[in-house]
């Protein structure tokens, strides 16, 4: 046995064992060593086309063309080239020509195979009328050809839905009356699936449902594919819970089936179980990270969950990466709606923000004015009673008026403080002494603590005799402090020995800290990530808008600082505002924004 035969044997052996890529490697070697032997090229092309990756069709084509140079009249080679060209899915002008050349030279089964291959080429080139003719041709030669019948049905459904419907119906009824046999059952299942799919596409959902029930009773068994088709039909009918039950069963049998997961997502979404829908879509994407269905499902679910920003990102991805699907799913329109929602939410946010700080301030002011108004009221009411009862003496006039005067002064101060806060310019920054700001704020809000028996301890650091100064907007900073103090107060309100601490500190790295702590129950783990997200609140809606922490963090971010949460040692919550000290801030920011005039 010469070395050529040995190599050939090796190749045949590998083929036997199904080790096709290794066989292909040896065939390349064979071609190099024996470039005049057609066998090497022919075998290589066959293996590549039948068993290997589509990416290698090009190599196969070259091999066949080389072989054809050695044996220009080989019908087998010409057929193989024809197949290759069709499977390569390129625009090949030669295909028609080659078909015409081959069709008259091949007979029997070979002829039918050629016709099928050509039909699939025509189908892909969307030349459906010619495709239809090919199927008719096949049926003329072999009237029971199932593939041609199906092909014809597909062509009809493109051209004439009514005709296609009738054709499917005939196929379905005809098959039922045909002789029993293994093939009959397979074909019944197959045609039921195709017919149902056709009916679905024609929006004849009820007909599809009837057909599938009929199929169930005719076949007396269920296949996973038929159950899945039924589930899809149920989804279309809007019966999502029944569909979901079927899909769950299929998912157990076919856990890696992307389509099943997708339909499960659709059902969960429709049933309003958005969290679960999101999970299922994520599993779909684990199986196929490039599924436009999965991404679109996630986008729509997020949008429904009110997570507009996240949904927007996903829709953008779908638009960029799967433009055809984006059109099919109407993503552009959804995207526009979403943009509008985001704008609306932004406006709502701004409104709510304004309402939030003014509301807090207003309620503090309302409490604070109770005292002076109460004193004026009591003093004047007492004076009037005295007059009525002739108990009023002239020397009572001066202390009464002085009492009233003092209280109106107090009222004036309260109102001025509120106006300063409400009307304050929130755009400009200035030098702010943190300790002064805290003292001023606490002056206004203290009442809300004492009234509820909550101890409020302030510990403002002055140890190094340098004021704690930062570059910020005082009103916004005050707003942050009010938010944190209100949260702390509400966290301890029902506690017996309730306490809130406000502390300031200059850290060793020069940063300035403002810390608000309480001895409440702290923030539970799962809420920590969410607490800075707008409109998320654990409080009852009358107490919180769910904006306080979101706004506060945004403000502090803008000042180049950080706002973060930690558990307080010994239990409770601890929020820290960390700001750059003024000196380092000046070096960082552009000099023009620094102004030293007092805007207070």
């Amino acid at each position, binding site marked *: 046995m010469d070395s050529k035969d040995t190599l050939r044997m090796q190749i045949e052996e590998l083929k036997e064992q199904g080790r096709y890529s290794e066989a292909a490697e040896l065939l390349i070697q064979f071609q190099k060593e024996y470039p005049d032997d057609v066998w090497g090229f022919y075998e290589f092309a066959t293996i590549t086309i039948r068993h290997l990756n589509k990416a290698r069709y090009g190599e196969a084509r070259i091999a066949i063309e080389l072989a054809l140079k050695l044996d220009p009249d080989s019908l087998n080679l010409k057929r193989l080239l024809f197949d290759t060209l069709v499977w390569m899915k390129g625009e090949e002008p030669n295909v028609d020509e080659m078909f015409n050349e081959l069709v008259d030279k091949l007979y029997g089964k070979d002829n039918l195979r050629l016709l099928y291959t050509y039909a699939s080429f025509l189908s892909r080139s969307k030349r459906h009328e010619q495709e239809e003719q090919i199927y008719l041709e096949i049926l003329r030669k072999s009237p029971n050809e199932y593939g041609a019948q199906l092909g014809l049905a597909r062509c009809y459904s493109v051209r004439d839905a009514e005709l296609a419907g009738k054709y499917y119906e005939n196929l379905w009824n005809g098959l039922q009356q045909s002789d029993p046999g293994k093939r009959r059952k397979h074909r019944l299942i197959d045609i039921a699936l195709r017919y149902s799919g056709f009916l679905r596409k024609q929006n004849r959902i009820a007909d599809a449902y009837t057909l599938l029930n009929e199929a169930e009773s005719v076949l007396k068994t269920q296949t996973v594919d038929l159950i899945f088709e039924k589930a899809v039909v149920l989804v279309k009918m809007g019966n999502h819970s029944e569909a979901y039950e079927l899909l769950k069963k299929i998912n157990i049998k076919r856990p890696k089936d992307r389509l099943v997961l997708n339909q499960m997502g659709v059902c969960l979404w429709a049933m309003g179980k958005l969290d679960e829908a999101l999970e299922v879509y994520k599993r779909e994407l684990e199986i196929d990270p490039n599924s436009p269905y999965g991404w679109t499902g996630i986008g729509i679910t997020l949008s429904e969950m009110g997570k507009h920003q996240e949904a927007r990102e996903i829709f953008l991805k779908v638009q960029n990466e799967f433009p055809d699907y984006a059109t099919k799913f109407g993503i552009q329109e959804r995207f526009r709606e979403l943009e509008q929602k985001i704008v609306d939410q932004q406006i709502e946010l701004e409104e709510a923000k304004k309402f939030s700080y003014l509301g807090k301030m207003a309620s503090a002011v*309302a*409490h604070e*004015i*109770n*005292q002076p*108004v*109460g*004193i004026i*009221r*009591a*003093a004047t*009411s*007492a004076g009037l*009673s*005295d007059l009525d009862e002739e*108990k009023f003496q002239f020397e009572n006039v001066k202390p009464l008026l002085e*009492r009233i005067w*003092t*209280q109106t002064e107090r009222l004036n101060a309260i109102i001025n403080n509120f106006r300063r806060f409400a009307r304050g310019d929130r755009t400009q920054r200035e030098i702010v002494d943190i300790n002064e700001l805290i003292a001023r704020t606490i002056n206004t809000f203290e*009442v809300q603590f*004492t*009234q*509820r*028996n909550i101890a409020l301890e302030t510990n403002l650091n002055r140890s190094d005799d340098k004021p704690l100064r930062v570059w910020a907007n005082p009103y916004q900073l005050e707003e942050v402090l009010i938010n944190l103090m209100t949260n702390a107060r509400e966290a301890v309100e029902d506690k017996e020995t309730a306490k809130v601490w406000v502390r300031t500190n200059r850290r060793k790295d020069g940063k300035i800290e403002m810390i608000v702590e309480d001895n409440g129950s702290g923030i539970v783990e799962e809420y920590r990530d969410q607490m800075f997200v707008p409109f998320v609140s654990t409080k009852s809606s009358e107490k919180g808008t769910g904006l306080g922490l979101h706004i506060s963090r945004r403000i502090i971010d803008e000042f180049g600082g950080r706002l973060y949460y930690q558990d307080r040692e010994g239990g409770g919550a601890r929020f820290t505002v960390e700001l750059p000290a003024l000196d380092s801030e000046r070096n960082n920011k552009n000099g023009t924004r620094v102004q030293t005039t007092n805007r207070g």
Partner: protein
Amino acid sequence: MEREYKLLIVDDESEILNTYKEYFAKRDFQVEVASNGIEGLEKLIHGEFDVAIVDIQMPKMNGIEMIRLARKEGVDTDMVILTGHGDRDDAVAAINLGVSAWFEKPSIEMSKLKDKVVDIAQVISLTEVERILSAIPNGEQRDRL
């Protein structure tokens, strides 16, 4: 007025204390004042008052807490509470503790406050009613009731 009523006013605002005290003193009440809850509780336990006027909003120990502790100590003095405008929750809490009346400071009328205080002071306390009833022979008591 048949006798001088003993009145305790508890408020952390000295101006409120002064104004109320002057008003009631002019009308022959015996007035004592306390400027926070702790002092108020002390005086309630050791003194005998007909009525106490108690502010709810106070540092250290607020009015509600003071009344609660006083009741725990067996003090049955009738209480009138003062609240800010619209502090209805506080009022409800106080009424649950058996407070006789509540007034909002910013809309107070002193003559009405005085009338209420007198009204309450004239009513014999429940414990006193029980004492009187227990002195009456059983049969007669049944007939009366």
